[in-house]
């Protein structure tokens, strides 16, 4: 019989022994200074929760009382009387269109840059410069980017993208705003994709190369599917940022209540060259700072906006959390 043979018989009591001590040391014995500190901690936590709940409940309350489903599908019209100023269908359209343009530009570029940074990254000086440039964009205020877009798209070669009236380009249009929006989503997508790529262990890449595939096809066939959740997280975060941004819209979209395509030209292109508004600029315009001064509509639109953004963030978190199951095969 091996010396390791049978373990000793299990203890008679099947249930674990009762917990005899309190799990954490109680604060009643602490010196006064520490107890005051703990009280401040609790106060801070409770205050934060109260503030968040207040904002949430107030917006819900105002939104539910002010929002009528018809608003979501009616075009806005400029009328002083609130009951005749319509809904905010066009701002919603504007939000969707801008987000689509912004993401459509940011995702391919962002994923490509992230791939190049992680998989290749030669020469090293260029890689560091690109990383710093992306950091500069991440840190730049969106007003600055919007301001840059104003000149860039009205005076230079790219002025074809903007709204024109009698041959003067204003530097404002959906395309212009969408392009600058892609800039603010770009660092988020690059960051999320980079992190996801760095988490793929090296032996997966080496296995693919050992089978004779080139690096390019390794990227296409193995790495891209593996980092899909990471790209999705970055995209959701980028979309959240685009949808919530107001400065770029106020500066670059022309602030017309309804979507105004440019006169003449091909339908799709003239829409992109047109002006309009989004939920954010609509809220801004209807607040006391803008011209509309229609707080009820502003609340309704703000409620819709808040719902969209919070849902997006929750989605992004769920993707980030669920990722571990999807790529479990990598381990």
């Amino acid at each position, binding site marked *: 019989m091996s010396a390791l043979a049978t373990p000793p018989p299990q203890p008679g009591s099947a249930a674990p*022994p009762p917990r005899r001590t309190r799990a954490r040391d109680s604060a009643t014995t602490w010196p006064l200074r520490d107890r005051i500190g703990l009280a401040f901690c609790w106060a801070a936590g409770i205050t934060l929760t109260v503030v968040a709940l207040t904002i949430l409940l107030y917006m819900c309350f105002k939104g539910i009382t002010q929002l009528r489903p018809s608003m979501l599908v009616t075009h806005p019209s400029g009328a002083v009387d609130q009951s005749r100023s319509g809904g905010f269908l066009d701002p919603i359209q504007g939000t969707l269109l801008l987000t689509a343009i912004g993401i459509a530009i940011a995702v391919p570029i962002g994923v490509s840059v992230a791939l190049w940074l992680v998989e290749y990254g030669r020469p090293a000086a260029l890689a560091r410069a690109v990383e710093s440039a992306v950091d500069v964009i991440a840190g730049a205020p969106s007003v600055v980017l919007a301001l840059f877009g104003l000149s860039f798209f009205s005076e230079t070669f790219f002025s074809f993208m903007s709204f024109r009236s009698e041959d003067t380009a204003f530097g404002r249009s959906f395309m212009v705003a969408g392009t600058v929006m892609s800039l603010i989503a770009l660092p988020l997508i690059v960051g999320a994709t980079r992190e996801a790529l760095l988490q793929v262990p090296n032996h997966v890449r080496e296995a693919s190369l050992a089978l004779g595939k080139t690096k390019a096809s390794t990227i296409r066939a193995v790495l891209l599917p593996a980092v899909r959740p990471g790209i999705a997280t970055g995209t959701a975060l980028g979309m959240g940022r685009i949808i919530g941004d107001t400065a770029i819209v106020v500066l670059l979209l022309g602030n017309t209540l309804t979507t105004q395509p440019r006169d003449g030209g091909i339908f799709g292109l003239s829409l992109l060259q047109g002006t309009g508004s989004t939920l954010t600029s609509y809220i801004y315009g209807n607040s006391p700072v803008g011209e509309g001064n229609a707080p009820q509509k502003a609340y309704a639109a703000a409620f819709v906006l808040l719902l969209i953004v919070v849902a997006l963030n929750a989605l992004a978190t769920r993707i980030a959390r669920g990722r571990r199951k999807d790529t479990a095969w990598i381990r």
Partner: protein
Amino acid sequence: MPPPPIRKISLDAPPTVVHVPPIPLNGNGNGNGHGAPAGGLHTPGPPSSDAPVIERMRCNAVTIAYGPKVAVNKVDLPISQGEVLAMIGPSGCGKTTLLRSLNRLTELTPSASRGGVISLDGQDIDLLEVTALRKRVSMVFQQPNPFPMSVFDNVAYSLREGGSKRPRKKELMEPVERALTRAGLWHEVRDNLDHPALRLSGGQQQRLCIARSLAAQPEVLLMDEPCSALDPISTGKIEELILELREQIAVVIVTHNLQQAQRVADRVAFMYLGELVEYASGEQIFNAPQAQRTRDYVGGAFG
């Protein structure tokens, strides 16, 4: 040259305790066990001390469980000042869990629950205030874990953070020096008290941790495999330290290293799968163990 023959290890062989004639050792007490089977493991035991043996702590029917899994099952054990208690046993046998429960460190794990009574100088430790308890029963961990502060700040840490009044540096100099001297580190760091503690070598860091524990003048010192991450010279220094400390402090050391247990321990407790199999003096455990399982473990049949 043909490859060496494959030898089968027989799993059914009866556990044997082979009596090996004593090998004369020369010089230092550091044993050089080459895995020689027991019953003749003649690493000399610790030098006897004249200090009186006073019982400081006692475990009564202590049972510890993590959730449904029982880690320690009804253990009775005394811990006395004036002698060193070594807890030996294979991995997972519950010795570290039992050690951690002596200063209620198991409470840091949410799923842990404990039954039985542990008493310190006759008082149930569950009724004591836990920070006061931990000042009287100190612990040194397996990996040296000095804080990211200077050497002085490390040793003075428990003195500073004990009560509401923060002692000034001048008042702390003396206890710090005393603790570092007891730990055998004073001469090496006396000029570098403000240097970052993480720049010390591994052995010095562990001695710093011991000094840190000694600063509050504890009554019991718990050591969880303190030398397992250290080189032999540092190990030797710490073992000397333990032998010096045992006269004023009750020392409990958990170790995987049987030779180390032989060198320092007056009393040995052998645990296996949560049970206390045998508790006796060092000589008895290593030279004439009563229980079969003890004989097997000490003899190297499993580990």
